[in-house]
C-alpha cells in the first residue's frame, strides 16, 4: 500500500458529534499502527462551520444554498399571473413578487423581497428595495437590462446571453451582484 504521509505528524480536527475519550484513543493507535502517523493533537469543535458564500464569476456554476435568513419567511408575496410588457411596472414593497410570465424589455418589477420570474427577465428588476440584501432575483431565462438588489446596481455583463437554464442573481461576498445557475433554494 502506498503511504505518502508515513512517519509524519498530524493534527485531527473533529466537528459534529463529539467523540468519547476511548474512541479518540482507538483512532490514535489505529493511525499509528496502520499508517505510521503520529497524532500531535486533537481539536474538537462542536460548532458547525458556516457554509461559505461563493462569490463565483457568472460563468462558474456551483450549486448554492441561498441564505434564507432575515425576514423572508414573514414576508407576504404577491403572484402576478401574466407577462409584464414594455411600459408596465409591478411594485410590491411589502414582500416578494412571483411572476407567471415574462418581464419584457422596457418593463420594470420592484419588490421589497425576492423576485421570482417563471419566465424570461428581459427588462429591469429591483429586489430588496427596502434594504434586505439577502433578496434574490430568479428567472427561468435571465437576460435583463438592469438588475438591482438593495442599492447594488447592475454589475453583470451587459450582453448576458440566454443560457437555457434558470439563473439566480444575488449579492456575493465581494459586494457585487453575482449570477449563477439556479439549482435549489
Amino acid at each position, binding site marked *: 500500500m502506498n503511504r505518502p504521509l508515513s512517519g509524519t505528524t498530524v493534527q485531527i480536527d473533529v466537528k459534529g458529534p463529539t467523540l468519547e475519550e476511548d474512541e479518540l484513543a482507538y483512532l490514535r493507535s489505529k493511525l499509528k499502527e496502520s499508517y505510521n502517523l503520529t497524532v500531535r493533537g486533537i481539536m474538537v469543535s462542536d460548532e458547525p462551520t458556516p457554509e461559505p458564500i461563493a462569490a463565483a464569476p457568472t460563468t462558474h456554476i456551483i450549486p448554492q444554498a441561498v441564505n434564507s435568513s432575515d425576514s423572508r419567511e414573514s414576508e407576504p408575496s404577491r403572484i402576478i399571473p401574466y*407577462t409584464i*410588457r*414594455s*411600459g*408596465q411596472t409591478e411594485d410590491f414593497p411589502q414582500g416578494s413578487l412571483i411572476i407567471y*410570465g*415574462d418581464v419584457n424589455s422596457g418593463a420594470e418589477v420592484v419588490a421589497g423581497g425576492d423576485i421570482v420570474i417563471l419566465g*424570461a427577465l*428581459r427588462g429591469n428588476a429591483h429586489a430588496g428595495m427596502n434594504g434586505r440584501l439577502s433578496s434574490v432575483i430568479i428567472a427561468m431565462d435571465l437576460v435583463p437590462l438592469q438588475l438591482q438588489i438593495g442599492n447594488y446596481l447592475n454589475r453583470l455583463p451587459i450582453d448576458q446571453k440566454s443560457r437555457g437554464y434558470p439563473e439566480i442573481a444575488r449579492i456575493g461576498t465581494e459586494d457585487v451582484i453575482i449570477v449563477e445557475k439556479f439549482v435549489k433554494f
Partner: protein
Amino acid sequence: MGKVIVVTSGKGGVGKTTSTANLGTALALLGKTVVLVDADVGLRNLDIVLGLESRIVYTSMDVIDKQCELSKALVRDRRVDGLTLLAASQKNNKDDIQPAQMKAICDKLRSTHDFVLVDSPAGIERGFSNASAGADEAIVVTTPDVSAIRDADRIIGLLQHARIEPINLVLNRFSPELVGNGSMIDQEDVIDILNIDLLGIVPEDTGVITSTNRGIPLVYEEGSEGGQAYMRIARRITGQQIPIPAFDQKGLFTSIMNWFTRKG
C-alpha cells in the same frame, strides 16, 4: 355584423399603412365588403398607397362635424368590388377627434361591412386611442428589430388593457438572408417575446416602394412575394387555415438539397 380591426404598431414606419391597404384589397378580392379607415389625422397617406388621393372630397372630420353623411364620405375603389376608404382630414390634428366619435363611426360602418380596418398612426397617444376606440380586434405590425419589438410589446399591453382581443401579429420586412447569417432576429424569438399569435410574415420586398408610388397595392401584382404574403394573411383573417411558410427554411432546404447532391 362586421368586425372592426385596428392595424397598429407603436413604432412608426413599420408598415401599418402598407398592411392596411394590402389586406383591405385582398379581403375585397376574396369577396368581402371592406372599408378602410385612415385614423392618421394630419399625416394621412392611406389614400396615396391606394391611389385614391385625387378622389377624396370628404373626411371623417366632416362626418363628425356633420358636414356630410357617413356613406357620402366613403370613396369607392373602382378596381375591386366592395372596397371603400374613409379618409382622414389632413388639415386637422389628432386632438380634434374624440375616441367616442371614432367609436361611433366604426360602429356604424360595422353594420354595413364585413370588415372595418383602421390604419392607426404611430405612437401611444390620442391618435392610437382614437384608432383603437371602436376596435374589436387588433393586428400589430412589427419589423424584426429590437426597438420595433419593444414598441409592439408596449402597444400589446395597452390593447390588452383596453380588452381588445384577439391581438394578432404581422411580422413585416422579414429577410431570410439576414436571419440566416445571424444579423436578424428570427420569427420564433419575436413570438417568444411578444407572446401573441402570428398571423403572417411579409418578406422585405422592394416592390413595396414602386407599388406605393403608383398607388397599386402589391396584392394586384402576380408573382409578388409581398403580395402573396398579404393574400395568405387575408385568407387567415377570413378563417381559412393556411400554413405560414417558413421563409427562413428556404436556405436550410437548399443546403439539405446540396448535401444530397454532393453525396449522390
